[in-house]
């Protein structure tokens, strides 16, 4: 009962948030990023956290959605974006089926390596093909959807929120269902799982398909939202790693872990990237804007967010491998 009340409260807050913020596009932008990363990481969590199959190549599905959508809209600019999203799901699912048939035969190190290799093949292919815009990427000028004002960020806020809600609902349902128990059994011990009647490759592929389809929807939304994509934005290994890292920090294999991870990591990255920290230090009079340190901070702090990600990853694996929610669960 307490649980339901809490979830309702969180949902209500999330829905009402843009009303309080009003028309501050900067803050809404950050919130959209938080929702997107939370949803991406939750989708990854179905495969990585519950089934224990750490995919290091989820950017491939995100990119599949983004590229499919934007390519279709450049070709036919009157198309309803929802159709593009659906086609994106089909493309991502095809890639997932191909990936699954290769990587799920492998275990341990090999699985992780193979998932990277598949994603890199996708990235390099997109980079080398003509229709994808190659290294230039794709720029989309104009879209319309049911008369919504797509130049405002609010529709995308609610779009991402919806996908996050759906992802969490699917996860919550799966956890208490046969499939969810089977995925966890596979994570814990594949031989034991197989001996109890679990068709390993069927259930792994099922988890991968669900995860890839959701990831692709998020890719499509991202493409519609930003309207410019290239391989480094949507297909890079770094994106795959950020997705995993978000889940790890929050708590792998927990329902809310990815959300917690995104709430912590995304704003942190934003603070570093937009040099808010540097400005704050200057404002506080701690460093002078024209001093060597000041200039260094100004010019380089944007790079530092990946460095900070690296440091957080290392600390997290060493000291908090079960994530923040894992810590909480252990205390219970």
């Amino acid at each position: 009962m307490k649980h339901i009340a809490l979830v309702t409260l969180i949902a209500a807050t999330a829905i009402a948030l843009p009303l309080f913020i009003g028309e501050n596009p900067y803050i809404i932008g950050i919130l959209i990023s938080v929702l997107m990363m939370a949803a991406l990481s939750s989708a990854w969590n179905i495969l990585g956290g519950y089934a224990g199959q750490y995919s290091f190549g989820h950017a491939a599905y995100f990119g599949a959605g983004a590229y499919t959508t934007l390519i279709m809209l450049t070709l036919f600019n009157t198309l309803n974006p929802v159709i593009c999203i659906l086609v994106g799901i089909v493309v991502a699912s095809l890639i997932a089926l191909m990936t699954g048939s290769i990587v799920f035969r492998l275990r341990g190190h090999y699985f992780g390596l193979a998932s990277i290799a598949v994603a890199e093949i996708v990235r390099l292919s997109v980079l080398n093909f003509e229709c994808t815009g190659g290294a230039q990427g794709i720029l989309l000028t104009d879209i319309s959807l049911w008369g919504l004002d797509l130049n405002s960020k609010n529709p995308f806020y609610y779009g991402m929120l919806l996908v996050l809600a759906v992802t969490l609902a699917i996860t919550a349902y799966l956890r208490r269902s046969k499939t969810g128990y089977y995925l966890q059994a596979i994570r814990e011990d594949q031989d034991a799982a197989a001996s109890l009647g679990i068709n390993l490759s069927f259930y792994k592929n099922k988890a991968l398909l669900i995860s890839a389809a959701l990831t692709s929807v998020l890719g499509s939304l991202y493409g519609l939202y930003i309207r410019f994509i290239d391989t480094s934005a949507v297909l890079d290994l770094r994106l795959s790693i950020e997705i995993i890292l978000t889940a790890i920090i929050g708590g792998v294999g927990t329902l809310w872990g990815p959300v917690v991870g995104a709430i912590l990591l995304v704003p942190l990255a934003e603070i570093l990237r937009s040099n808010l920290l540097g400005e704050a230090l200057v404002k506080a009079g701690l460093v002078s804007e024209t001093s060597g340190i000041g200039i260094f901070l100004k010019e380089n702090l944007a790079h530092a967010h990946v460095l900070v990600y690296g440091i957080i990853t290392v600390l997290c694996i060493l000291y908090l491998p079960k994530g923040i929610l894992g810590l909480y669960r252990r205390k219970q």
Partner: protein
Amino acid sequence: MSFLQPLLSGILTGGVYALAGIGMSLVFGVMNISNFAHGDLMMLGMYMAYFAFTLLHIDPYLSLVLIIPTAFFFGFMLEKLFINRVIHHPHQNQILLTIGLGLIMSNTALLAFTSDPKILTTTYSSSAFNLPGDISISLPLLLSFLITCVIISILYLFLAKTSTGMALRATSQNREAAQLMGINVAKMSAIAFGIGTALAATAGALIAPTYYIHPLAGHSFLLKAFTICVLGGLGSVVGAGVGGIIIGVVEAMSSTYLSTDWKDVIVFVLFLAVLLLRLEGLFGKKGGR
């Protein structure tokens, strides 16, 4: 153009790849860890060679005398401080830890050295000599290859003849059994990681005169090094040597006869093919994680 040209340059480049692959394979064999920071360790080697050349005016090939011990020590400490703490963790945690360390290295380099690519130009950087049949061989490539051969030979002798080398191989074959025989496996891990790092840095230094030196330069070598290891059988030093040459030749051939753009794709496809063909029989034998 003759078929021999890409074959020859492929073999020469492949030698350096082999060096990187052997380092990774050794680490994998002894510690059973996939080191995702390997490419970034190569990148550090590139910068070491670059600064030895620009600041200390030491020839990049000569600077190996400094780079190898420095890198060994660095790797040894990395293992002592970080890696050994996850040696009994699930693979994915080990992978993430080394990814994290790699991100720290590459982004520290980005902060320290900026993202502008550096070029190490020696007097002989672009010299080449011609063989009969219209084949030209780049001098730095040939030098790198020869140095690689020397280093691999020394490593081979070390592993085969010294007691530390034999202890490393024993640990690689069966960690538990080695421990029961009284081998200090924790020390072996640190030594293996030190050697792996030294080999990565050496490979980096050797290619420094012919590549752009850049904080993210290691990334494209990481997956190549994995491919090489898997090709040769993870953990096998000789296999990694052969694997390196094969990758070098495949790359050179596909650049010549297909297109430069697709050569990496071909390497990854090869990687997956090898994974599947070689490991088919392993499926189901080992425990779940």
